[in-house]
């Protein structure tokens, strides 16, 4: 789908903050509210905008269980379907949040989420590494998230240090 400049603007605005009110977006891009609504609807229907989700920093929530691991997976590709078959076998698991085909020393990079180290470990040893095409796995647990999808996860908000009135 080829986007018009205004549609592009709308996508860019929503990508930084999906909760901006439609009337505000309308003003920012210079369209009427109805036109903006229509444009957003079209973008949704064409799956340019796939979903609106929140970036949650779960570490701020007390006693919230949850660990993430990045796993490097070496696999044997199959004739005819290459890596797609095994990737699908893997991404269908609910525990798996992302799967990427990589260049370099391993083939698939996957991200697995679980409630505990044990849960992820069990998934790897029982589900993932037992798949026929999987040759080896290397699991890296994420200890701390500093930046995610372009957003720096600050521990405290940075105060505006500018002087209140300046020439």
């Amino acid at each position, binding site marked *: 789908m080829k986007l018009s400049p205004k549609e592009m603007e709308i996508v860019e605005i929503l990508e930084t903050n999906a909760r901006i009110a439609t009337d505000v977006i309308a003003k*920012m891009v210079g369209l009427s509210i109805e036109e903006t609504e229509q444009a957003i609807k079209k973008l949704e229907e064409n799956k340019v905008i796939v979903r609106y989700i929140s970036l949650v920093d779960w570490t701020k929530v007390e006693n919230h269980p949850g660990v993430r691991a990045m796993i490097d997976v070496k696999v044997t590709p199959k004739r005819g379907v290459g890596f797609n078959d095994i990737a699908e076998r893997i991404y269908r698991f609910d525990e798996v949040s992302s799967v990427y085909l990589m260049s370099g020393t391993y083939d698939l990079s996957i991200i697995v989420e679980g409630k505990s180290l044990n849960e992820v470990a069990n998934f790897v040893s029982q589900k993932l590494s037992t798949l026929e095409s999987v040759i080896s796995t290397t699991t890296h647990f994420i200890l701390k998230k500093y930046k995610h999808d372009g957003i720096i996860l600050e521990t405290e908000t940075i105060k505006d240090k500018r002087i209140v*009135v300046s020439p």
Partner: protein
Amino acid sequence: MKSTRTTYISKMATDLKPSGIRRFFDLAAGMEGVISLGVGEPDFVTPWHIREAAINSLERGFTSYTPNAGILELREEIAFYMKNQFHVEYAPKDEIIVTVGASSAIDLAMRTILDPGEEVIVVEPCFVSYVPMVELAGGVAVRVQATKENDFKILPEQLESAITSKTKAIMLCSPNNPTGTLLNQAELKAIADLAIEHDLLIIADEIYAELSYDDEEYTSMAAIDGMRDRTILVSGFSKSFAMTGWRLGFVCAPIEISSAMLKVHQYALLCASTMSQYAAIEALRNGRPDVEEMVKSYRRRRNFIVQSFNEIGLTCHEPGGAFYAFPSIESTGLSSQEFAERLLMKEGVAVVPGDVFGASGEGHIRCSYATSLEELQEAVKRIKRFIDSL
């Protein structure tokens, strides 16, 4: 021994009026929960790669003076930038001086061109420093008023009627602080014709040049036919690269003027900050995407705030550049000082009364939209409540 302190102070310094902005700063600074639309600088922090370049220069020990005109490498980058971006050519060795912000470049220009009593035409509303800088250099500032009827664009005939035998230069700023007004090529050309006819210089403060939002490409005064030789072009890194605190600007002028300015500069300031200069090299080499992102963001916020002001009854022309909206508050019957002061006290929104920028700024307020969209929305809400309460 002299008895009172004031006897030590020159007449010039005694007569200088404190900036009207200062008073507002004092009022607002002590208050809690203020949303400020009074800030004359970007809300972006300097892009990291630029900051990192300065850190690197410190780590490598580049802490000595630089040549008076600035590091040659930087001047070469500036020459390249001015040619690419604005289609004006200056020799890096002789026609570009790196200064301590654009302010020091304007000061330098005034002190270099003015003999006592010579006049500079200053177009108001304008940046608060122009008139004092003319006066500090021994000149006389002749104010002409750009008016709201003309979207704050000065008309050539207004300039012409201010020209006398003592006029040396016209001080011009586009896009303008505080009105955001941007002069297009034809409007610049009309002023240029006047300058050529009367043999005047133009000091063109183009510090906001990158922040222009019209579809039409920005035109520099120096790019107008015949103007390169009579333009002192002032620019810098503060607004375009969000580098206000680095205090780094530059001035481009034909060699006769540049070499004279360099003499003044070497005695007054020696050179601009070394680490800032290294940061600026990085800004010019790799900062283009940052500028584009920031411009996009400002443009959207401008559209939002201008339309919002018009909706709540504050007539606002669409500013072509900078990051200021300059709505009229005449419908409220208040003076701009009263409006700004009462708005601040009642709703905790800081704006700058238009009259501090010149007589024709009366009846307007300067609102900087270089602040987050959330704050802008809240500010509009509060301003509406304030107007409704009058």
